[in-house]
Every structure is written in C-alpha cells, then in structure tokens.
C-alpha cells in the first residue's frame, strides 16, 4: 500500500487521548497528500481495542498481535513494526510522542534507514513538520528528504482529535502476526509501580504557586512558600527544583510529574520548557514572573511581570496580605 500508517498506543487495555491526537495528525497529513489512512495497534489481545479504533477511523485497522507483545519491550515492538512496515510500505508513519514511542521509534526508523521527526507540533504543505527547539524558544521546520517511509511523532495537545463520525462505516480489521522469537527480546520489563502514595494532590488544587530554576538556591524556597501561604495556594515546582531535591518529587508539575488545571497558576522563575507547559497549560489563569521577557512561559501566560523575582515576590506577598485584611 501507500498511505499514512498511524500507530495507536494502548496501556492496560485503554487508548490514551494522545493516540487519538496522533490519528488526527495522520488524517490531516493524509488529506494534504491525498493518501488513505490506516491504523495499527500492537499487543497480545487487541480485538476490542481494534474495534474501538475501527469505529472512529474509516479505512483499515491492523491488529499487530502476538503473545510476545503482551508487555511492551523495545525489541518486540521494533521487530513487529519493522515487519509490518516492510509488508505495508506506507509513505508516512505517525506515532504519538509518548515515553514508549521515544523508547523504540528511533531504533525502528534507523533500522529502515530513516530518522524519526520527533515531538512535532504542526504539519503543513510540503509536507513540512514543525517542532520546538531550544526548550521552546525557537521553532524548526523539518522536511523528510530520504527515500522510504517518513516517521513522525506528535506532541501531546498539538492536534485536536476530530469528533467520531457515527454515520461512517467502521473500518475493516485485519490481523498481522509478526514472526517473533523469545530470544530476540533482550530486556525483561517488570510491572510499573508508583514511588510512594502521593500525599500531595496538586490536581485538585484551586490555586498553585510554582517555582523554577530562577529561585537559584534551596535557601530561597521559603520566599515562594510565603507567597503560596499568603494566597492559600499549594506550592509546586518545575522538574529541576525536584531533581535538585529542593522540593519533593510529588510537587512536580509537568510531563513526568502531575498535570494540573487550577483557577490560578502562578509561575515564579519558570522559563516554560515544553515538558513543564504540558502539565499546566490547561490552567484557567496563568501568571508568570520572570526576568527574561523572551521566556516561553510568556507564550501561555495571561498576565506577566518581567522582573527580578527576588524583588517582585516579596512585594506581591505583601500586597496579597494587605488585600486580604
């Protein structure tokens, strides 16, 4: 075939939203290029999931099914999808940019002499693919120049899933059984676990004050804590703060931490790398305090104060206290 092949990811029998976003990206690309879309779902018991995909996607859904694919391994998924792609010969392979895809898709693309254009936020005529550079401070427009399939992974939240068309005929479902041998799978994955029961539920907080690298030192954290206390807000942080051990990991907001959508998200000294933005951009009101007027956080902020947080935060704490009296 020629066309666009989209890989739908499942976890414990569920299809995550980002997979539907990847489907939307694949449909957009297919419309631009005048190509059909097919979906593939990889696992050991994919029957009901494939039916779920087929109900929303006209065309064809391929179940890449094998007992050795029950648990994700980079070796298993790479081998299975390599065989599928060699058989189906798609022009484009679209994937959701998840931790799982990041683990196997670069190897899959390389095995076919290709390079994954990863973490794409937009696509347009050409086709060209836009992705963020320098932690979101610059956009890069990429083009596939090789011969062979073009691999693209799409960032969470970048493409809007279309509403299911209930009048459409469900897609035809096919089964593809890859040839896999247990000896080819070199890693042994264990069951996922959570580090500790999370005692801080940032997800339900109405007000959040979040602190980033700009705070410079652990000794300065109380400055932001005081502001949070004055507002009656939960204190949160970007990844580097938790990496340094200045605040516990359970207070981390972002792709590797919690996702929040409070009424107010006040970001102090946070530049706004995409890994952070995905965790908080759904907040109703975003306020950013940062000394760098070009910091990407200002791209999503409703209100901004460009200035030295060591002057602005104490002034703000005092003003909040005064307003509450």
């Amino acid at each position: 075939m020629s066309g666009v092949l989209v890989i739908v990811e499942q976890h414990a029998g569920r299809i995550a939203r980002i997979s539907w976003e990847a489907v939307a990206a694949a449909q957009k690309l297919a419309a631009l290029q005048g190509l059909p879309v097919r979906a593939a779902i990889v696992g050991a018991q994919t029957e009901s999931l494939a039916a779920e995909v087929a109900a929303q996607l006209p065309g064809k859904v391929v179940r890449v099914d094998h007992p050795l694919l029950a648990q994700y391994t980079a070796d298993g998924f790479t081998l299975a999808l390599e065989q599928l792609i060699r058989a189906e010969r798609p022009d484009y392979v679209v994937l959701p940019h998840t931790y799982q895809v990041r683990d196997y898709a670069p190897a899959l693309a390389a095995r076919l002499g290709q390079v994954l254009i990863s973490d794409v936020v937009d696509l347009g005529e050409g086709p060209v693919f836009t992705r963020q550079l320098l932690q979101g401070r610059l956009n890069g427009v990429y083009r596939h120049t090789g011969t062979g399939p073009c691999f693209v992974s799409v960032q969470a939240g970048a493409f809007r899933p279309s509403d299911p068309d209930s009048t459409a005929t469900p897609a035809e479902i096919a089964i593809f059984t890859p040839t896999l041998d247990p000896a080819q799978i070199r890693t042994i994955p264990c069951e996922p676990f959570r580090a500790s029961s999370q005692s801080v539920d940032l997800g339900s907080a109405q007000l959040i004050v979040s602190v980033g690298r700009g705070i410079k030192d652990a000794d300065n954290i109380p400055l932001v804590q005081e502001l949070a206390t004055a507002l009656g807000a939960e204190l949160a942080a970007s990844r580097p703060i938790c990496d340094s051990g200045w605040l516990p990991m359970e207070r981390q907001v972002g792709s590797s931490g919690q996702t929040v959508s409070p009424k107010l998200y006040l970001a102090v000294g946070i530049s706004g790398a995409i890994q952070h933005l995905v965790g908080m951009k759904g907040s109703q009101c975003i306020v950013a305090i940062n000394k760098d007027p070009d910091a990407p956080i200002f791209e999503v902020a409703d209100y901004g104060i460009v200035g030295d947080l060591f002057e602005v935060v104490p002034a703000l704490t005092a003003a909040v206290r005064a307003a509450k009296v």
Partner: protein
Amino acid sequence: MKIVVAIKQVPERDAQICIDAAGKWIVESGLQYALNESDAYALEEALQLKERHGGEVIVVSAGPERVGSTIREALAKGADRAIHIDCDDLGSSDPLGVARLLAAAVKPESPDLLLTGLQSEDLGLGQTGVIVAELLGLPHATLILHVEKTETGLKVKRELEEGWFQTVELPTPAVLTIQSGGNKLRYATLMGIKRAKTKEVRRVAAAELAVEAAPVVLLERVTLPQKQKSTQILPGTAKEAAAALVEKLKFEVRVL
C-alpha cells in the same frame, strides 16, 4: 566496568537567541556553551558506577573545536579519558548521521555500558542513544534514573509518565539514556581541573570514521514561536506590578 558516556555541548539555557541571516539556525558567535544537562547526569551515573565497581569512564563528544572545553569539564569531574570527534558541520547532520559517528568511534572500545542523556537541550530530538544502540546491535533502555549492576547484567529504574516507574533488567553490553534527577551532580574540584589537563583527549576527524553522512531529514528553517495567548504585561516597579497583579487577581480572576 568500562563505561563510555556520550556528551553534547549545547548553548547555555539563558542564551539570547538571534536567527541567522540564512534563517536556518541561530547566530553562534558570542554564544556561551555548556554541557547538556541530562548528559551531566549520565556522566554522574558513570562516575558513581566506577566508584562502586571499578573500571574506566571514557567520554565521547562530536563537534567543532569549542567542544574541547566541555570535554575538559567532564575530565575534571573524573572521566579518565576522552574521544573528540572533530566536525564543523554537525548542524547539517541528522540524528542518524551523528549516531553513526558516535557508534564508529565507540565500537573499537567495546565498552560494557554506553550512557548518554535522554535528549539535548538544543535540538531535543531525544534519539541519539537509542539509534547508537541499534547501530551497535546492543539492547537499550531509556529515561533511566538508577542503574544497578547484577550478576548477569543490569537492573535499571525507568521513568514512565505521570509519576510511574518500572524496573527493567537487561544484559550487558547495553546502552542507557539517562533522565535528569537520579543523582546529585558533582562539581569539579581544583585538583580535578588540574588533573584534567594531563588526561588523554584523542581527536578523530569525522572523515576518518568513514560513515554515511547524507541526511534523510533536514532542518529547513527556524522561526520564532507565535504567542498562543496575548499576555498582559504589568509594568512598573516591583511594587507597582505587584499591586496591579493583586487588582487583577481580585477583580478579574476572582481568587482573592
């Protein structure tokens, strides 16, 4: 354990960005450079493994002359020696091209373990480690926070999304990409900086490695991002801006 750490020099995080005349990259003159953050964690993990189990830590980095300063920094922190793949036109390569250079330089060393950061802060493609593993025919695991040596290989703690983790076992030799935050980073000591000056840095011209270089994806142009929202900047002194913000929080956001 013989450990190779692939490191990258990237523009400093706060660097002022200015798009070059061709619109293909940023103006590099005057930029300050630093060791890529997750690569610093990869180096730290390697140094700690060496302290626990003995062996050797070799850093490898590709890039022009200026990369030498980042290599010296890694040596000052405790790496034993380095390989500098000399190339001025890395910008026109794609991750497969860069991985081919690294794989060709690393292969003769036959390390037990190859570590690198999970992604670079400049291009952020997040693929180099995985592609090198594929090219060398080695098993790999990504987003690793902790590495433990076992009788048969390695047991690693892998980060998943939304606060989940997973333990993965794999045989050596292997490639791991390291997530930041697993360890506390060390600083170079004065003694370390002094010692680094006498450590071996072997320079290899990219051409000598004779790898296929034609890119299959191309960064065609760069642009400044468009704002997603119109941000209302509150001007004035710290005190004035704070007072203006409190007004907004009270009457528009209604959270006070």
